[in-house]
């Protein structure tokens, strides 16, 4: 019996050992797959958390699990008011960030920063020029002889819009007004430059003014909004390209989610907004609605959201060059990479 017992036990023990070894090998193999598949990256929004579409796309992708479905772990950060995102991405401290297309081109041309735009949100620019309805100004042609505000720098698109009406800044009094729309309410200036996504709401809802906003894009001036950008060095690495494609796929999904259901997108955004003071959700919704409207065009309807062309960037560069915002021309092909969008929207 003992012999029998031994003979029975031995194959059983061997079977158990083999099964255990197989289970361990399988679990190791599976866990190995997981760790290889899960990629992490750092995103930094170029301002404070609020419902700007390039930020909302990231919030929604995180909250709705789109990043997780792509096997992506995203560390979401914000630069606040510092502008540090522009340097941190060049130093490799973060992977992807946001910047207005005109500013991206300017920094690339003037300081040689190897930025590469990979997705475009605003199909038109973020700036507008607000006037009180009581001012009698009905078009930019009426700016002549008026007090016109600017925020530190007169935008190239403003020069181009004036040129479209046969004017230059010499035909008006230019005043550096800083960042307070009350100067328009107090009529210290007749024209006040606004960030389209928030200041018109402040002027109409908070300051109770009836205003008209002129946009350079309406007068044939090529303007573009915010892009997602990475660096040339980042794109040289295959793993980086893989995680960037996953990131863009998830954020494009989130972008479409926000277009379909902006209220739900704002709910996802709330988790990222500062709690003190409590967020003004009506204002946040205004920001999102404005940016969604500016992010959709015939081009995106034909090709998919986030789409852009080389011609768009070329035209914007030409305007920036003409009015001295760029010191050197740049090779647009190096400044943009559409391969990810082409792959995702194919």
């Amino acid at each position, binding site marked *: 019996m003992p012999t029998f017992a031994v003979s029975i036990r031995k194959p059983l023990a061997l079977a158990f050992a083999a099964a255990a070894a197989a289970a361990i090998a399988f679990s190791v193999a599976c866990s190995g797959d997981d760790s290889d598949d899960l990629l992490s990256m750092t995103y930094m929004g170029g301002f404070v958390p609020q419902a700007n579409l390039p930020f909302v796309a990231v919030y929604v992708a995180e909250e709705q699990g789109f990043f997780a479905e792509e096997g992506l772990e995203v560390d979401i950060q914000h630069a606040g008011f510092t502008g540090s995102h*522009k340097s941190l991405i*060049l*130093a490799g401290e973060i992977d992807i960030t946001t910047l207005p297309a005109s500013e991206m081109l300017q920094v690339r041309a*003037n300081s040689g920063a190897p930025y590469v735009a990979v997705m475009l949100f605003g199909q038109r620019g973020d700036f507008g020029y607000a006037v009180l309805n009581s001012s009698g100004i009905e078009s930019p042609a009426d700016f002549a002889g008026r007090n016109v505000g*600017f925020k530190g720098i007169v935008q190239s698109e403003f020069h181009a819009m004036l040129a479209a009406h046969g004017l230059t800044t010499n035909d008006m009094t230019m005043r*550096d007004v800083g*960042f*307070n729309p009350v100067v328009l309410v107090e009529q210290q200036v007749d024209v006040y430059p606004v960030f389209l996504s928030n200041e018109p709401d402040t002027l109409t809802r908070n300051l109770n003014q009836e205003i008209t906003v002129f946009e350079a894009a309406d007068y044939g001036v090529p303007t573009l909004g915010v892009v997602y950008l990475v660096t040339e060095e980042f794109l040289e690495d295959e793993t980086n390209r893989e995680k960037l494609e996953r990131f863009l796929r998830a954020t494009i999904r989130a972008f479409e989610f926000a277009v379909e259901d902006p209220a739900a997108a704002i709910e996802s955004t709330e988790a990222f907004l500062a709690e003190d003071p409590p967020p003004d959700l009506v204002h946040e919704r205004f920001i999102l609605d404005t940016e969604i409207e500016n992010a959709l065009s015939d081009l995106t309807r034909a090709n998919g959201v986030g789409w852009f062309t080389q011609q768009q960037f070329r035209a914007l560069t030409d305007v920036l060059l003409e009015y001295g915002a760029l010191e050197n021309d740049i090779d647009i092909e190096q400044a943009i990479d559409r391969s990810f969008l082409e792959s995702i929207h194919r």
Partner: protein
Amino acid sequence: MISKPISDLDAYDAAEPRRPRLSRPDLRPTLTWILPPLVALVLLAVAVELWVRLGDVSIWLMPRPTSVIESFFVDFGRYFNEGLKTLAVSLGGLAIGTAAATLLAAGVAHSNILERAVLPIAIMVKVTPVVALIPLFIIWLGHGWNPKIAIAALITYFPVLINAIAGFRDIDPRMHDFFRSVNASTWEIFRHLRWPAAVPYLFASLKISVTLSLIGAVVAEFFLSGQGGLGAVIWIEQNSLRLEQVFASVLMLTIIGMTLSTAVVVAERLFSWRLDQPVTAS
């Protein structure tokens, strides 16, 4: 009539005019004045250069000091001209802030009620972040130089106010009694007793506020960058990530700050020497 300030009653002899305690100041810059900060700056620059080169620090985070110095000399005219604008704002603010604070301190030194009324307001203004006030100053004072000068004045007045109050009150009570005994008027007491007592305090506060006024000017220029100044250059170049130009502007600011600080020290010596001249009483 008392024609000159008296600071020490025990040493005072009306019949024998006092001899100046200080000899005429030697205003020539000496090696001991210039060399230490220069050596320290050079050592700092060398340390940063080594750190950036050997530590492989990204040029987008920290430029090499050699590049900064190159930019400084290549574009010297620009930094100098913009520096003059910042200097004008700074000096305007310093003059207004110092004058206002000194006048207020003179009143406060004579009145405890005024002190109780004014000091909480002064402290309230002091603790208000200046940056938060700039957009309002633009609305109140217009879009030119005025708001910038006002910011520089606002940032400088407090150290002067507190020091001047202390100085105007730091008088020998026996001297005060003496002035009263000779029927000196309030103005005479102020001019010959309180004012000389306050001068060292004023200069001590000026050494602080002269650099604060530069900071105020630069901060205001960030907001009103269309009119130039080193603050505007820093803001514009920072936006274009041209850190060499940012740091070259800071270098020019440093030179202006050191020049102003030195000017205050020289003025203090001159003034102290003048106050220490013989006193005659009649």
